[in-house]
């Protein structure tokens, strides 16, 4: 542990967006012809032959792109992630060159265009202005991996539990122990600031909680709470959730979770608003650690092979063992307790957050599952914190100077995805089970169309 976290940290903020890889979002930081951060393992040279993807014998080079809506979603379920990792029978290594081939199979076409969406990367910091600001003023973690080479639900469950009962995203509600219950058992004050339905609406066991305004609150109240809430009730752990594109309701927020085909501009605005809310109270900010990451890579290219850390299904659940972590995702620690423009190169994944919570609020490991990952080399978020004297908050440039991508029309998928069906099922059952109380918190539930 680098610093005395129990004395220096009072609030932990967790923000997890959707479906972008490290190289796709932050690879530009290392561009020789651009920012040239040689301390960060990004895309120094897009023409590096080892980055070249191939599909049906044809070669595909990475290309720089502007933020924009994408033609559609990219493949990111277990089977096609396996294609992306491209484990070579010859070299025995994960070559990370199958992203285009995976996309071709997903699209069910004989070939894909040269500038295939999975191998586009943000051309400069202007495309991701809030992340760029964070990278220039806080710590970039360039070895933060999604825990599993799989999609949203398995990876979010790893983040919320340290294990997962599903290995693919399923079109139904879910049930397993969650970090919220772990915090409650330890009498830790926690709260979710939500935009629309929170992710744990997928868990019927959490429905009483998500209708409890002390635990689940609209993110519109965040800035005011940070400014004025009493220390006795102000949360020690705060989860800030975007408006998920898979949710049937968004409580009037623009969808801003960065899930393709969305552009990332709305997500950048979302992150900016959170940062401004917390830094709006300098005394509280001085003792805050904000963790920004993505649930999984969403099918986008990354050049760093996954870590050889296996994950078995929990007892009573049957799915094939995962042999590695997932693909690298953006990970940033935004806090007055880190050195500006620094980089952390050691291994992290979503369970690094659970390790951090256990260090803060317990005297033992979070769970045997999290300990197994720790023993395999996954570090805690606390390891990233290095300053014993908090520094003042950096002011973010004005919004108009950031050039955030305009909101553009986003194509809708023809068929609902399993996660969309799961969200819709949860929303209907929540409404049916909790009635008026559910409508008090989520009035938009009344607009759900009857099931066809």
């Amino acid at each position: 542990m680098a610093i005395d976290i129990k004395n220096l940290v009072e609030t932990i903020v967790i923000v997890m967006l959707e479906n972008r890889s490290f190289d796709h979002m932050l690879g530009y930081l290392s561009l020789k012809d651009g920012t040239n951060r040689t301390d960060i393992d990004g895309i120094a040279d897009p023409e590096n032959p080892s980055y070249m993807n191939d599909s049906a014998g044809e070669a595909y080079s990475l290309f720089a792109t502007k933020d924009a809506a994408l033609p559609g979603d990219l493949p990111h379920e277990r089977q096609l992630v396996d294609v992306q990792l491209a484990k070579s029978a010859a070299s025995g290594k994960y070559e990370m060159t199958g992203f285009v081939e995976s996309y071709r199979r997903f699209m069910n076409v004989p070939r894909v265009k040269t500038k295939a969406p999975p191998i586009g990367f943000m051309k400069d910091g202007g495309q991701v202005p809030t992340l760029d600001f964070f990278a220039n003023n806080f710590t970039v973690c360039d070895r933060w991996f999604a825990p599993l080479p799989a999609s949203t639900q398995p990876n979010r469950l790893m983040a919320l539990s340290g294990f997962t009962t599903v290995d693919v995203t399923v079109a139904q509600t879910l049930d397993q122990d969650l970090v919220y219950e772990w915090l409650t058992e330890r009498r830790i004050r926690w709260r979710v600031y939500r935009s629309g339905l929170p992710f744990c609406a997928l868990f019927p066991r959490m429905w009483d909680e998500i209708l409890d305004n002390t635990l689940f609150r609209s993110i519109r109240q965040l800035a005011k709470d940070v400014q004025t809430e009493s220390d006795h009730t102000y949360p020690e752990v705060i989860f800030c959730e975007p408006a998920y594109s898979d949710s049937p309701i968004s409580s009037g927020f623009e969808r801003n979770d960065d899930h393709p085909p969305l552009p990332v501009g709305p997500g950048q605005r979302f992150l900016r608003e959170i940062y401004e809310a917390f830094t709006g109270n300098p005394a509280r900010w001085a003792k805050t650690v904000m963790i920004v990451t993505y649930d999984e890579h969403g099918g986008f290219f990354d050049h760093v092979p996954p870590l050889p850390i296996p994950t078995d299904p929990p007892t009573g659940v049957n799915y094939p063992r995962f042999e590695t972590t997932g693909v690298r995702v953006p990970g940033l620690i935004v806090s007055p307790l880190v050195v500006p423009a620094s980089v952390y190169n050691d291994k992290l994944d979503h369970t690094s957050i659970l390790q951090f919570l256990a260090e803060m609020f317990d005297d033992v490991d979070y769970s045997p599952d999290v300990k197994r990952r720790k023993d395999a080399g996954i570090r805690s978020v606390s390891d990233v914190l290095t300053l014993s004297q908090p520094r003042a908050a950096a002011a973010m440039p004005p919004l108009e100077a950031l050039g955030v991508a305009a909101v553009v029309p986003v194509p809708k998928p023809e068929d609902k995805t399993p996660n969309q069906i799961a969200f819709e099922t949860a929303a209907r059952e929540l409404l049916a089970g909790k009635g008026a109380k559910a409508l008090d918190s989520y009035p938009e539930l009344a607009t759900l169309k009857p099931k066809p």
Partner: protein
Amino acid sequence: MMNARKMAGGCYVALFLLGVAGCAPKIARFAVLPVRVCEGTPSAVTWEVSGSPELTTAPAIQPLPGEPLRYQATEDTVFTLRATRWPYQNPDVAETEVRVHRTPPPVTERIVFTMNCDGAGLVGILPRPATDWDSRIRLETVAADGSREITVEHETRSATLTASAPGTGAFQGVAMAGTWKVTTPLRPNERCGDPSAAPPAKIILTTQFVCAR
């Protein structure tokens, strides 16, 4: 960019029969073949979509008269097919594109082989569909990067590429289409499937080809 064809799809019928709010567009198939053409060879364009299809080309070229729908590319041309949902207010759109490469002599292209273990060496096999290639396209040279000995087999010919002779004209006049095979022996310090002594996962050949007269 030119709007070459615009026509209604089968969505309307479903709308009236089912009384649903709209049909999501979908491109089930879009083919422009061959995609590698020589001067004067037309490419046939076919598709299956739901929604209203719209075909554009960049640069703008006119279709040849008659059926089926055919275009004669005079330079590299991108064919883009969009399918739009009816009604057009707040439309949903599906879009895909195919680039037709017009071959001015000579053209260079990399082809990538995924290598597998095969006894004391590695082998990579790559089929190249005949439908993709204008039958007049013929190989001139085949080259590797010279980093190791590679034997190339294609059609009835073969050649061994080495550090001192990384390129060959042995395939001159042979069509690009067909099955390609490359083999390379393991070096003494290489062990197949062992990341600590890894042989190459892929082998890349650079081919040069022309349009036969």
